């Protein structure tokens, strides 16, 4: 397998030793139902390298204590490790200050934090919230709640048949009434990479605040929140080889400072009396209770690992993988691939349908071969309804996947079709 991999790594002009990368991910060695695991469900969650697993173990073996309150040595070490992770994440996404990084449970909680702490206090009837038709439920359901509670209206930027947003309609949709534009950076179904910079500029011209769901972007490409000029940016650790249960909300200082806390309790206070309390500075006022310290340490290790390979290299390698997957899938007449075609750059995933075979049956058959894909609506029911498709099968890739695994997928799909339709 390694020779073909290295060949095309050279083809894209980078040093990318996927064989070596795979060595760091112990789970990739396991078998499933008697077959070598082929893990192609990375848009759902990613596998973890030894470096991340060891960081978690080391933290609990050597440094475990609560943060920001103990006087003893371990408390100091734990606090340092936790805050170092914040600085690391801040630098990784181009935030100018680490106080603009709030640790949450994940992208979903980051978006909910904005919904509860910012939107409920800043929106009123007549205001407009703009989303896109390709949002994950995580960036849709909170806004249904906010719209209901505040009387603000929801508008959606349409998705064109080619899987891109209808940018021509944006000037009609983002108006001076628009207070918030919240959109996905990379679609988890279509793979579309949205033009965040341009949309943010138009939103700001209209006085709106911009929130970006970057769950499928940060793991796969260089993201610079400062260059994008977005106001809020949300992502999850587990989709970028880090632990589950921790995520990030980036927010511009002046906005975070004006916002009310999200949760209330220990860690987030300055002073408490029986009849009132005042809040700690940002970001701590948003981190009530004992945070996921080990998770932050693990995420730090994940970022170190990704940086040691280089986000530009990862993006180039994945782009080549997805190009190859698209080429192979599009060559098969009974497969229809959703989203932008090969001429347009897309994120590392392909969702597709096979006439006459339900995605659940495809996924179960592939599972019997040890191939893990996702079947369903991928938490984007309204998008599937719009496309007139109840559900799709999705193969999503990451830095440890190979062309050989894509060949296994194609072979598995051919077997699936023979099994169900002949």
């Amino acid at each position, binding site marked *: 397998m390694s020779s073909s991999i290295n060949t095309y790594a050279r083809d894209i002009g980078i040093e990318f030793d996927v064989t070596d990368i795979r060595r760091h991910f112990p789970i990739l060695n396991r078998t499933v*139902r*008697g*077959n070598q695991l082929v893990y192609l469900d990375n848009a759902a969650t990613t596998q973890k390298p030894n470096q991340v697993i060891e960081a978690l173990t080391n933290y609990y073996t050597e440094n475990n204590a609560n943060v920001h309150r103990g006087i003893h040595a371990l408390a100091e070490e734990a606090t340092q490790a936790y805050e170092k992770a914040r600085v690391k994440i801040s630098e990784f996404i181009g935030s100018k200050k680490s106080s603009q990084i709030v640790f949450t449970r994940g992208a979903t909680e980051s978006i909910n934090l904005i919904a509860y702490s910012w939107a409920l206090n800043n929106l009123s009837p007549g205001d407009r919230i703009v989303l896109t038709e390709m949002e994950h439920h995580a960036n849709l359901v909170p806004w249904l709640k906010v719209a209901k509670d505040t009387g603000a209206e929801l508008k959606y930027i349409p998705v064109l048949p080619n899987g891109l947003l209808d940018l021509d309609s944006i000037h009609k949709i983002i108006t001076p009434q628009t207070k918030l534009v919240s959109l996905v950076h990379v679609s988890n179904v279509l793979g579309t990479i949205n033009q965040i910079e341009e949309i943010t500029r138009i939103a700001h011209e209209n006085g709106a605040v911009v929130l970006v769901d970057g769950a499928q972007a940060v793991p796969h490409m260089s993201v610079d929140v400062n260059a994008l000029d977005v106001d809020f940016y949300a992502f999850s650790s587990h989709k970028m080889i880090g632990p589950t249960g921790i995520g990030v909300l980036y927010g511009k200082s002046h906005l975070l400072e004006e916002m009310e806390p999200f949760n209330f309790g220990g860690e987030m206070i300055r002073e408490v009396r029986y009849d009132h309390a005042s809040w700690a500075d940002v970001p701590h006022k948003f981190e009530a209770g004992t945070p996921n310290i080990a998770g932050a340490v693990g995420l730090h290790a994940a970022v170190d690992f990704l940086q040691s390979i280089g986000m530009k290299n990862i993006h180039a390698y994945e782009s080549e993988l997805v190009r190859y997957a698209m080429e192979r899938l599009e060559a098969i007449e009974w497969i229809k691939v959703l989203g932008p075609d090969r001429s347009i750059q897309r994120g590392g995933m392909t969702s597709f349908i096979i006439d006459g075979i*339900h*995605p*659940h*049956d495809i996924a*179960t*058959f592939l*599972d*019997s*071969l040890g191939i893990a894909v996702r*079947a*369903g*609506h991928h938490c984007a*029911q309204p998008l*599937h309804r719009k496309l007139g498709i*109840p*559900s799709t099968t999705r193969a999503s890739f990451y830095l440890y996947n190979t062309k050989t695994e894509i060949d296994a997928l194609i072979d598995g799909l051919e*077997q699936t079709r023979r*099994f*169900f339709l002949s």
Partner: protein
Amino acid sequence: MTNIMNEMYRDIIMEHYRDPRGRKHVTSPDITNEGHNPLCGDEVELAISLDGDRINELGIHCVGCAISTASGSILSELVEGKTIDEIKRIAEHVKAYLTGEIDELPDDDMGDLEVLQGVKQFPVRIKCALLAWTTLIESIEHWEHDKKK
């Protein structure tokens, strides 16, 4: 691979999937209900006309995978002519059987249900096999609740 797939997608299941029974229109139904599997978007629509406490006619339309469609098709063959109580009992058995609470279905009149057992090896798919049944039970419970009012 093929063995465990053959066990799950038995010929009878594939035959029900390709030619589902019960896809009929029930005029003036007494009970109607829709069921969804939020995980995958599978949908089932039920319409039932009653004769006393006995099911006179049942129409079922499934949009979903082979397992949920076949299960709905088998359901439609089983329930017509049975009383509400009998159907509740069958549904409980189906659920207990597929979730592994009982190892065998009772002998009486379980039609093709036994062929669904292959899903036990794929626990996430048990929901597919149960969708039509849970929708049926839910609709009966709603109907009974409304009747008491």
